[in-house]
Each structure stands twice: as structure tokens, then as C-alpha cells.
């Protein structure tokens, strides 16, 4: 299959890449760019592990062709912290004990970011709904929800 040249902005950095038309975004990130923070766990868009943000919107990178989002702005887990300063959601996940094996964590954190960007003051129920598509087998979600609510508070304080 003929490769195409495509431009992307990934974690604020411009890329010009030679891309096979049939590869998915998660393959591009993990295999071509070694951005292995984005995980692939089901391959069919059912578990949310591969969630990244495309122009700020949560996107399942296992079910998205790379070329379909050419020219867009992509944020992966590697681009979330500002240098050595963690994003409040990352910090809250650490502080609240919301991470166990950690494999679902990158997708979960980015989904939480999309949720809080849209709704800075969610209820516990709204957090559950927002994260409903991201599966975790370790935590029972309790401390993940705690972390998102704690991060929301920190972010609101930071914004005011």
C-alpha cells in the first residue's frame, strides 16, 4: 500500500510523517513514534485504554485511522505534564492511590482531562458517566473517581 506524507501536531510538536494508509493512530504512536504511553488492550474500541485527545476531544486511537486525523492536534499522556510539573489529574491519581497496575491509567487520565475541561465541577455520578467507557480491572474505580474529583477541585482553585 502506498504511504502518504501527513502532518500532525503531537504533544505540541509538529511532525511530518510517511504513513501507511491502513495503520491506526495507536500503531502510529506506539510503533512509528515510540510513544508507548498510549496503550492498546482490546483493539476494538471497547476498553478506552487507547484514549488520546484530538483537538481536545477524547478519541479511541485503536479505532481511528492515522490518516483520518492528519493536520490535527494530538495530546498523548507523554505530553500532559509541563516539564517536570505534573498535570493536577496526574498528581491526584498518585496522591489518591488511583493507580494499581497502571495499564489503563494513561487513557483514564486523558478521558478525565476531557471531562474536566468540559465540566470543571462534576458530581461523583457525572465522573462515573464520563469514565464509563474506560475499563480498569484492578481498582474498582473508587480511588479513580476520588482522584478526578480531587483534581477538579485543584484545577478550579488554579483557575480562579
Amino acid at each position: 500500500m502506498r504511504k502518504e506524507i501527513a502532518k500532525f501536531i503531537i504533544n505540541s510538536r509538529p511532525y511530518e510523517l510517511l504513513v501507511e494508509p491502513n495503520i491506526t493512530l495507536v500503531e502510529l504512536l506506539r510503533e512509528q513514534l515510540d510513544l508507548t504511553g498510549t496503550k492498546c488492550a482490546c483493539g476494538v474500541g471497547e476498553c478506552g485504554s487507547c484514549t488520546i485527545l484530538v483537538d481536545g476531544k477524547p478519541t479511541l486511537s485503536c479505532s481511528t485511522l492515522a490518516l483520518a486525523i492528519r493536520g490535527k492536534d494530538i495530546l498523548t499522556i507523554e505530553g500532559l505534564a509541563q516539564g517536570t510539573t505534573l498535570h493536577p489529574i496526574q498528581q491526584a491519581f498518585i496522591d489518591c492511590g488511583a493507580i494499581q497496575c497502571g495499564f489503563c491509567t494513561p487513557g483514564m487520565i486523558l478521558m478525565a482531562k476531557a471531562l474536566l475541561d468540559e465540566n470543571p465541577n462534576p458530581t461523583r455520578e457525572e465522573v462515573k458517566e464520563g469514565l464509563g467507557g474506560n475499563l480498569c480491572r484492578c481498582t474498582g474505580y473508587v480511588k479513580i473517581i476520588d482522584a478526578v474529583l480531587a483534581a477538579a477541585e485543584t484545577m478550579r482553585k488554579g483557575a480562579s
Partner: protein
Amino acid sequence: MSEELLVVGKRLPRWQAHAKATGAAKYTVDIKLTGMLVGKVLASQYPHARIKKIDKSKAEKLPGVEAVITWDDVPQKLYNPSKLDLILRHPEGELKDMYVISEKARFVGDRIAAVAAIDASTAEEALKLIKVEYEVLPAVFDPIEAMKPGAPRVHEFAQNNISLHIDFPVAWGDVEKGFQEADVVVEETFRTAKNHICQIEPCACVASFDADGRLTVWSPSQHVFLHRRKLAELFDMPEGMIRWITPHIGGAFGKYGSFGVEPICVALAKKAGKPVKLEYSREEDLFGTEARQRYIATGKIGVNKDGTITALQEKLIVDGGAYFTHNSSTTGVNMGSFVGLYRCPNVAAEADCVYTNVPPTGGVRGYGNHEGTCVLEQLVDLTAKKIGIDPIELRLKNIKHAGDPSNTGLPMETCTLEECIHLGMEKIGWKEKRARKKGNGTKRYGIGMAIMMDVSGAQPFNIQSTNAYIKFSEDGSANLIVGAADIGQNLMGTLSQIAAETLGIHYEDIHIVTGDTDSSMFDSGQHASRSCYQIGNAVIMAAREAKKQLLERAAIKLGVAADELDAKNRRIYVKADPQKWVSVDEVTKEAIYNFEGEHLNISGKGSFSPTQNPPPFAVVFAEVEVDTETGEVKLLNVLYVNDSGRAINPATLEGQLEGAIAQSMGYTLTEDYFINKETGALESDNFNTYKIPSALDMPETEVVLYEEQPVPSGPLGAKGGAQGAMVAITPAIANAIYDAVGVFITDMPATPEKILEALKRKKATN
């Protein structure tokens, strides 16, 4: 513990949480080596078929293909993928019945061939070019059918497909007499669920031989040393020629007590002469790696009118699937749990392990205790109803106490079941809620409970040895080197807290070295909730030795005797005069950079083999709402009262219990490992059909850590906690359903269809 603890008992951040939160943590699936090939496996599409001929020539000729292997290319010896036989006192229990690549297809998904190629698409293309001529054989999917004369035989040696008959070896009393003496005898048959682990990282392995023929394997393992020895035996290599490294592990729950794809990956790397990465898809993970045994369990209980249990008996038919794996050990644990939870003078149990043409089973969190206790704890509620007493009263009458033998037969140092039951009863308001009207509408409320005891290791049945090594750097920080794996349970953080507390330094001063057979000493593995208790004890021994050296060096500096000193908060101080001190880093630095020729790298080693096995305890309450029109069960609330002794890190322990609530909920209500009755294929082959709970499904939860009785033999009073965490939740939910609608769940999971059917049956018999 009269002394104040500075590190233990604190909710400190988990080991490597920062790396996991930033995407920097490397898992097996993230590993990329120069020149690494991609491996793929050809799975049988038939549940039972003889392989008449395989033509791999076309696949081999495809450009980019570097190795194609079939049964002829793998070691011609049978093995068992469970690591347990290496440490079992009676190793003949776990049968060897599997080749790296099968000589005959025994289930849809059995491994027929494998390829290694330059990329995934070439490897997939090559699989299509392998021509297999099958002779399709009749298959059998149900264990009862499989035991009938004339049923298709899954393995030639197993008559009526019975691989092993097990009589519970330590039965006591006279069970027949016990039933005769009982006022009431209750018997019920249950089908437990074949529930899959569904760790989020799919099973994967990377294998590479170096120029000297030394093999390095990167793969998740809960038993690095046992797995290394298994590989060594399988591939006729000395153990020292293999290095096993465990990267971060994306969930384990018992899965990596068995081989995943390592043997095939190694065989491919050997044939290709290049590194190979083999990663299963979710579908392959679901049919190709081990799930729970499905037990057809007949439980029988005899009680007097006052509720005293007189006899307990369990008869099991074990649907182990196409290969034996852990069937003997899990079944033994099932029986021990069933007969060992309550005081009972007469017990017996037996089992037939049966082969069927469905995906094999293995060791999953709870490891038989979950199933054995579920059967028992549901029976207890049924019995309480029959004799007309409160199920908690029946339990309190029969529970064990300190000094009684535990489920392993060893005497218990502490037993807090009674305290935990009372605590939970009050907290949830048992009496009021139990008496609450169920309602006449379509939504019926119910509350149920169950109890359990688990283990802190597999003493006295298995070798349970472990080692820890601590060495100081000049800056006063220390490496803690252990041969164990952090499988997400934060074992490394837990051990760091124990080490820092004992050494008198800070949590962040401990730097872990783990998951590498080259750099650590032997450990018998992360199973049976043994790690915190057993390795924690080894860490304390190592830390005490290192601390002794530290104090001796400081004593010279401070001009006092070493026994007058102690260490805390990075300082070594005179106990009688704490203002007189020297910092730990000053001592460690001078010990290393010593111009008087008295060099010492302060260090300590601890080797531990347990003589005891203190069980953790749990008492779980569940509240449900059952919709009698749709059959749907809504889990409203779970209260989990747990005794794991002292919680080294309470947040870590809570996380284990909260996670177990989700897993049990899935087991009980939604996770249906569904095999097509015509084709034998797994139909629930991804997360859209195999439904594990999401955040949206979760009930209200409350976890209470009962820490009043730290266990004397434990490290700073701690014992196990993670493995048994599911055990009491499942029967508590089932008992709540029984309370709500009077329907007794005998076939897990309790899907809406099964609830409706049971309601219909109940109506018909009323």
C-alpha cells in the same frame, strides 16, 4: 507495638506511580529490541481434530518470514504450564499433558503452529499460508457428558475423560455419622462460573538469545525463578543460561502463575535466531490463556436445630477444559476452604477432574477458595432459612476462634471473625435492613452477607522460601533487592515501607531492584497472598542485619556501645540522650570511603521460610435490588470488613478490596464465558461480549480495615490480603438476591435470563 511507627501505616504514594501516571512505565508490550521479529500463533478452528498433515513450505517462502514452527519443531516433551509442581510437596498432582505446540487440536484456539516475521502483517499473511489437514473428531463441551461412556476422549490416557480423582487427603471424623446425627441435612448442587482474568495488558512476551546462547525473556511473571526453571527444563538449558526480566505488569490476578506465551515465543526466537515479540490480541487472550475452573459442586451440610454444624461434605466435578494446568491445586484449595471455614467434627470431600474440548483453565484470584467458600456460604444461608434462624446467628455459632486450626490446618494466632461480624452488622444496620419488607412491586430489596478466611501463603503445602537483600549507598539511601514482582498490588511500596521503618530512614530513601533473576535471590512467587507476609519478614531480617552494622559504625563515632543506639528519621541517636546523634549518610559514606582501610558497604541479607500461615479474614455485606420483570440485579451497596492484621499502607490494602468488589460483581452478575454449543468457539471473545464492570456499574462501597489484632508472626503485624479479597463478596451478593426474591442462585453468573427463569420456576412450585 508500643513504639510509634513513622513510615508503616501511612498512605504513601505507590511504587512507580509517577512513571505510570506519565506513560513512562514500560510494560512487556512496550519493549522494542533492534531486529525484533513479530510472532503470531495459528489457532485451531476446530474443538477436536487430529492433525493429519501440515504444509508450512509456502509460509516459509514468504519474504519477511524468519521462522515457522509446528509440533515437530518444539521440545518433544509434555509439560504443565503451572509453576506449582516445582514447589509442591506432592508434585505428581499436577499432570503434564501439554506440548509447546499441540500435536492434536483439543479446543477452538489450541496452538497448531506459529510464525515469526519482520512485521505483524507479514506474520498474519504467513499464518494464512500454512496448510493444515485436519481430521475433525467429535467433541464434548460439558463435563457431565464427557464422563459418560463412549464420550469423545480429549486425552487418550484419561478414561471417561477423568484426568484425576482426588479424595480430600486430610478429611476427619465420620461424615456419614455426622449427617445421621444432624436434625437437618441440606444439599444443593452449584455450577460456578468460568470467569476470565481479563487483566488489561494482553498477554505478551519478548525472547532473545545472545551470541553465547544465553536466553533473556521479558515477560510478566508471578514466579520468575520457577518460570525460569520451567523454561530451562523444557528447552534443556541450565537455569543459569536464562535471565527472566519482568517489566511492569498490566494486571496479573493469578494469570502469571502459569506460562502465557513464553514457550512459543522462545521456540520462535530459537528457530529464527533473532529476538521475537509475541503479543496476544484480546480475543486470543480470552480463549488462549487460562480462566477459572468451572466446578459442578454438590455441597452437603448437616446441622442441629440450634444451628451447630455436624457434618460437611463436598463433591466436585471439575471442568478443567482441554488441559490439566492447576486443576489439582485449585481443587485442593476449594476443598480445604469448604471444610475449613467453620468448626465441624466430620468432613469429607472428593473430586473428579474432567477434560472437555473447551479452553483450559488455571489459577485465578481466590484459587479455589472463592468457589469453595461461595458454595459453603450460600448453603449456610439456605440452611439458616430451613431451620428458621438468622444466618448470622448460624455463623456465629460455628465460626472458629484463635487457637483453632485454620483452613490450612495450622493453628491460628488470631481470629477476628466474630469481631468483624459484629462490627459489620452494626455498621450496615443488619437487623433493621434484614427485617425490611421486600416490597410488592417489581423492584425488590435484599441484603446478604458472607464470611471467609484466606491464607498468607501456601505453607505447609508448598516450598515458601524467599530472600531480601539491602545495601546502603554512600548517601544513606538503600537498595532493596527482591526476586518478587510488583503486579500492581504495590508490593514494592509495601516492602519499602517495611524496610524504611526498620532501618530508620525515609520511604523515598529505598530504591527497589526487582524482577530480574540475574540480580536478585530466589523467591517462590506472588501467589496465595504470601508476599507482604513472607517477603516482608525477609525484608525485616535483612534490614535488621544492615541496621546492626550501621549502629556498630555509629557507635565508634559517638563513643558509646552499639546497643545504646537506635535509628529514626535518618539519624542514629543515643536512646538515653537523643540530642547526641550522627546522620545515617555520614556513617554510610565514611564506611565506604574509608581511608583507614576499614571499608564496609553496609548491607544485610534476610532469608525466610514460614512456619505459620495466619489467615486474613473478611466479612462482607451486600445490598441489592432485583427487578422481577427484567431479572436485572442492581448491586446497591457493599460493606467490606477486612482483617489483614496491620495495614502497612492502608490505601494499598483498600485498593485491593475495592478492586475485588468490582471483580466479584462481574463474576456474580455479568461475566459469562460463553462457549457456542455447536462449534465450541468462545463467543464472549472481547469486552463487548465479555462484560467486566465499568465505573458506571459500581455500587456504593465502604471498606473497613480492622487492625485491632496485628498478627504476631507478621512483619510489623501484617498478613495477606489481596488474593482472598473476592472470596466473600460473591456469596454475599448471591445471598442478598436470595433475601430479595427467594431465588437461590445455583448457576453463576446470575444473568437476568437465569433470574427470570428461576423466578418462573419458583412461581410454578408455589
